[in-house]
């Protein structure tokens, strides 16, 4: 936690204290800088690379060189450009998917925990049943069902671009499975929060349930939610890449890091090794996950009151 010096200097709130602690977590600070840089690079992607991601920029399977930093793939596309675009898509999906799972999980858990009694047990049994399902089967069904629905809309004349529809289906599918743990954690917190004196005081003053939930319960959840959100982002990035690797997510010619790894894995053969097709996308994914996880660890150390070790 923060050193006595900083404590003495600033009249601090818990949030400020956590921020100080986070800034003093050296690996997390490094990782946060790295992530920031990665996001900037991903956003600037089109300006950094002279090639379009789907353009045939060179010969087939060119090894990395000054012209093509990460080499070229089976169609002569520039792998560096494709990693840039793929990384951008993966990060975006990770952030949006994690936010989605946050929304569902917090709502579900807060309502169950606050309502208590029968509502609580029904809601949490539903979570238990979903937990006992293999997530993969669940995601596949949700994603294909949503894709079918979107396809129907498209034929009905709604202006939906296929890539956008794909991403939307993928996001909803991931969101639908990744909120379970969040719901459990939030419910546990709410159960303990709602018996605290300040909540009882507010109720005694005649506050409505909505008021108590919004003004007292949700703000007190912030710490635990932020920590878990930070750990959900890498999990969602991982899931997106995994589904794309299986061919269920982003479809060619668009690419996420997962599709790129799958394309590279498909080119493994005993005669020639096109290592750059695997090493660069896989390495980028691993580095991004590493940075996200380290930042998550740092946030947890900073925000978790029990983590003062």
């Amino acid at each position: 936690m923060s050193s006595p010096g900083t404590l003495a200097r600033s009249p601090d709130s818990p949030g400020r204290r956590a921020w100080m602690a986070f800034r003093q977590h050296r690996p997390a600070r490094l990782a946060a800088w790295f992530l920031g840089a990665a996001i900037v690079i991903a956003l600037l992607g089109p300006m950094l690379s002279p090639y379009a991601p789907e353009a045939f920029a060179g010969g087939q399977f060119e090894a990395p060189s000054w012209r093509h930093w990460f080499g070229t793939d089976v169609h002569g596309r520039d792998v560096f450009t494709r990693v840039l675009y793929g990384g951008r898509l993966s990060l975006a999906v990770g952030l949006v998917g994690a936010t989605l799972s946050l929304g569902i999980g917090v709502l579900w858990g807060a309502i169950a925990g606050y309502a208590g009694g029968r509502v609580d047990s029904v809601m949490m049994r539903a979570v238990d049943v979903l937990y006992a399902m293999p997530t993969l089967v669940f995601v596949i069904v949700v994603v294909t069902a949503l894709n079918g629905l979107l396809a129907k809309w498209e034929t009905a004349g709604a202006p939906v671009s296929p890539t956008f529809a794909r991403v939307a289906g993928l996001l909803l599918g991931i969101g639908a499975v990744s909120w379970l743990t969040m719901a459990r954690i939030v419910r546990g917190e709410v159960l303990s929060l709602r018996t605290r004196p300040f909540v009882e005081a507010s109720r005694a003053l005649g506050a409505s349930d909505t008021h108590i939930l919004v003004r007292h319960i949700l703000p007190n959840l912030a710490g635990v939610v932020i920590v878990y959100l930070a750990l959900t982002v890498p999990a969602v990035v991982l899931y997106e890449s995994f589904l794309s690797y299986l061919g269920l997510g982003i479809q060619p010619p668009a690419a996420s890091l997962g599709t790129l790894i799958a394309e590279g894995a498909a080119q493994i053969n005993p005669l020639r090794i096109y290592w750059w097709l695997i090493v660069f996308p896989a390495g980028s994914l691993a580095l991004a996950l590493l940075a996200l996880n380290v930042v998550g660890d740092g946030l947890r150390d900073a925000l978790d009151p029990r983590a003062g070790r």
Partner: protein
Amino acid sequence: MRYVLRRLAFMVPILIGISFAAFALIRLAPGGPFDRERQVPPEIERQLNARYHLDQPLWRQYWIYLGGLVRGDLGPSMRYRNHAVNDIIAAGLPVSLTIGGLAFCFALGTGVPLGFYAAIRKGQLTDQLGSLVAITAICVPTFVAGPILVMVFGVKLRWFPVALWDSAWHTVLPVLTLGIYFAGRVARLMREGMLNTLHAGFIVTARAKGLSENAVFWRHGFRLGVLPVLSYSGPLLADLLTGSFVVENLFQIPGIGVFMVNSSLNRDYPMVVGLVLLYAVLLLVLNLAVDLLYAVLDPRVRHE
């Protein structure tokens, strides 16, 4: 004993709930099991639907399915004609069990010591290196580890065969591919658990009694420090034993992980529900085993 019986009895309604959820869910998905084949005349399609009871209302289909389930029959596969789901699972399960079991041993065998030594040397070089290895491992999912391992050890160095399922040599790469990620997860849980335990009052007491550091760490610390790993082991083992699509696909191994994905994609209804049930049974039984072991390790836990 009564506790175990009650838990076992409790599994029945949960399993029924899960089977129904899976049954309903897979049918909500668009398309059917006979879609991809060439167009068949309507009367044949009608016959097919009648044979697999697809013409009946949903609740009746489920009732028929439950009837079979009670007798231990998971029904016929709708994709692989003339094969029962039971037979397909019986053929693939031993392979998936072998790989999954070995990967589990690998994950615990490397993750537990790594986390343990990192924790008891907190802040030292061992800890920093160990934590770095662990966090790197959780950034290497199977579909990243697999292709790289194949490329380096299979194709380039030719130490291990890259595919098929023949000898003990064939298990090395798949098990590593599957195990690395989970070894990282286990190591992190172990370190965390040990650190939390070493702050407890009874550790101070043990030290005050003059016990050697080794006795403190092993006899008192480890027992409780390993608990987070233990509770993670239930779901982990259920996951690993039911096979991994990536590993089985990449190494062309005839397990059931491939069916898990393909049958969902092909809308092979009985196959999906059968596999979901298999996973659920494994998960529930393993979680029960975990809870029992918990009571053995932590004297404060009592099952009533």
